């Protein structure tokens, strides 16, 4: 984890401690100091600070004596250990300590010039007490930093888990969920590589840092272990640390999620195992639910297809009408910024909008030439009949709306309800535009198919009366975008129509 702290700024704390020890009672000129690579900022004896350093600890490398400069690097001259004299002539004694994991020098200076060369026994005794205290404070600081690291790491993990649960809810594709889960796991566990070895033996990498590029073969042992025991395992793959755990699937088989650290990094611990286990349980649950959902979606789709086949069989001379209706409805819904789920439902509505024609007698539906007013009244029943057919099975309100209202006109002259303007559900307005376009570009017994551009003009001319402007504009944009961005697909779908391959033929 990147969030880790080392004890720092401990220097000031040591300074306070040493000043307290020197105390007001001691000789004014005698003082304790602590310097070394782990002491920030350095705490030279007050005496040195005043006499030799001009009051600034930054001056140690420039103006400090050889003794102090060496001590700042953690070095201690042998003769100073008991007692000696500094280059300026003061009596000095030193002890070696460890601060912040580095060697440091604790020293005391007696500056009573021209005082005794020997630091008195009381001074040495004080030095020994200080050494003990400095060592204990350093341990406490290290402990404190350790606890702080632990808490910070937990904070980081909590945030990652929180983000993961939120992000995962927005994804519907199983592989994408799996990839996100593994990427987040790699971050949580400070892994350099992550992937899933499927029950079938396929390796799906989600994170592949070069430093942890691992041959899936190296994972075989731990993967087999996880499959056998169905619980999290730690081990090594090559010389990388690896942690692996089971992702239970709906079919009862187990995919194995693996996270690797680069060679040389710390092995995975008990905390990592707990974290992996709980997140894999969560992830496995989400993935299983998603699979279940995908299966239901597939089943619904099959029901829809069966119904569409039934419509097309009945009304064969508009063959492909349902399929095009579904496709163009989805395209328009997408243009309007509908969510993927809404687009799907709208596509079904587009596919199924004429399902009620199943209930219209064939001699009317397929009658060549003009219909009598009575026959037309029968035809007009098809939205209602479609609604009745789908109501027991369609769990989506949007589909029912689309089917029931796809012959309503903005000016209120449509059927079956005579709704006006915005009272007509959007899905129905879109289907109506799409339906009109498809009818215009199809050959009927009483007229030739219109070229694409002519059909678009007819629709434009009816905007506001029989055609909803919002849906129509979105349809125009979606259609043009499709023609521009996917010319090959466009050609396959609409190339047979006149004008399908030519740009804007008048």
């Amino acid at each position, binding site marked *: 984890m990147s969030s880790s702290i080392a004890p720092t700024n401990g220097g000031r704390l040591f300074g306070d401690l040493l000043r307290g020890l020197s105390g007001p009672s001691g000789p004014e000129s005698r003082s304790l100091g602590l310097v070394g690579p782990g002491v920030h900022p350095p705490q030279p004896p007050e005496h040195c600070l005043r006499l030799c350093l001009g009051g600034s600890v930054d001056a140690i490398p420039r103006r400090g004596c050889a003794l102090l400069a060496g001590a700042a690097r953690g070095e201690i001259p042998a003769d100073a250990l008991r007692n000696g004299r500094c280059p300026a002539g003061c009596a000095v004694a030193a002890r070696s300590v460890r601060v912040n994991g580095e060697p440091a020098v604790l020293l005391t200076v007696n500056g009573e010039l021209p005082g005794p060369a020997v630091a008195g026994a009381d001074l040495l005794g004080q030095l020994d007490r200080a050494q003990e205290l400095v060592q204990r404070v350093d341990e406490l600081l290290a402990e404190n*930093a350790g606890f702080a690291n632990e808490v910070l790491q937990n904070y980081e993990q909590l945030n990652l888990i929180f983000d993961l649960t939120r992000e995962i809810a927005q994804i519907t594709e199983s592989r994408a969920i799996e990839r996100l889960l593994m990427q987040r796991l790699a971050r949580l566990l400070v892994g350099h590589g992550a992937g899933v070895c499927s029950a079938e033996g396929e390796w799906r990498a989600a994170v592949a840092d070069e430093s942890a590029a691992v041959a899936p073969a190296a994972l075989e042992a731990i993967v087999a272990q996880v499959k056998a025991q169905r619980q999290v395992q730690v081990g090594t793959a090559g010389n990388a640390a690896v942690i692996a755990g089971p992702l239970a699937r709906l079919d009862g088989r187990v995919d194995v999620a693996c996270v690797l650290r680069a060679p040389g990094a710390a092995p995975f611990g008990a905390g990592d195992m707990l974290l992996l286990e709980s997140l894999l349980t969560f992830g496995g649950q989400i993935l299983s639910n998603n699979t279940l959902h995908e299966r239901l979606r597939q089943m619904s789709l099959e029901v829809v297809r069966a119904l569409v086949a039934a419509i097309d069989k009945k009304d064969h001379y508009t063959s492909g009408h349902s399929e095009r209706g579904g496709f163009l409805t989805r395209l328009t819904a997408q243009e309007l910024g509908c969510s993927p789920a809404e687009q799907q439902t709208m596509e079904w509505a587009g596919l199924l909008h004429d399902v009620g024609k199943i209930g219209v007698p064939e001699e009317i539906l397929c009658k060549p030439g003009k219909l009598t007013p009575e026959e037309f009244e029968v035809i007009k029943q098809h939205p209602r009949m479609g609604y009745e057919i789908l109501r027991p099975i369609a769990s989506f309100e949007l589909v029912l709306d689309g089917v029931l209202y796809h012959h309503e006109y903005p000016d209120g002259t449509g059927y079956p309800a005579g709704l006006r303007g915005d009272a007509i559900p959007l899905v129905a307005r879109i289907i109506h535009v799409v339906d009109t376009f498809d009818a215009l570009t199809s050959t009927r017994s009483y007229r030739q198919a219109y070229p694409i551009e002519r059909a678009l003009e007819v629709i434009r001319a009816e905007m506001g009366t029989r055609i909803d402007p919002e849906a129509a504009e979105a349809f125009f944009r979606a259609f043009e975008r499709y023609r521009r961005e996917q010319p090959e697909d466009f050609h396959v779908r609409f190339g047979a129509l006149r004008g399908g391959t030519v740009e804007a033929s008048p």
Partner: protein
Amino acid sequence: MSRILVAEDDPHILRLISLWLTRQGHTVVEARNGIAARELAQAEPVDVLVCDVNMPGLDGLSLIEALRSTAHVRRGVVVLTNRWDHGDLRDRLAAEGIQVLPKPFSPTRLSEVVAALLAAVSVEPGGREPGAT
């Protein structure tokens, strides 16, 4: 060197934030409540203010209000808030260019946000408006 004022009434969280930001190389000034924070900032300007929302005496939002449009906070403000009132508050504060982090804070995100504030716009001494960078 950047000077960061941390105002937080929970002493442990205050220490944690302080330790973490110190570790990132910042000089951290600690305040246990809003009033102390206001006095510290007024005594010597800080680059960034990291503050809690709920504090006795002077709460985080009032503290920001009190220090706004003065040179006491030079680069920007990070507000730490509870998850559950995160959404609303974030929108409101974001509109004023204030960063919001939910508690418990993500250490990495906190240091990223602070670093971004320090790097983004330099405000001229005297607290004039940032130049168009």
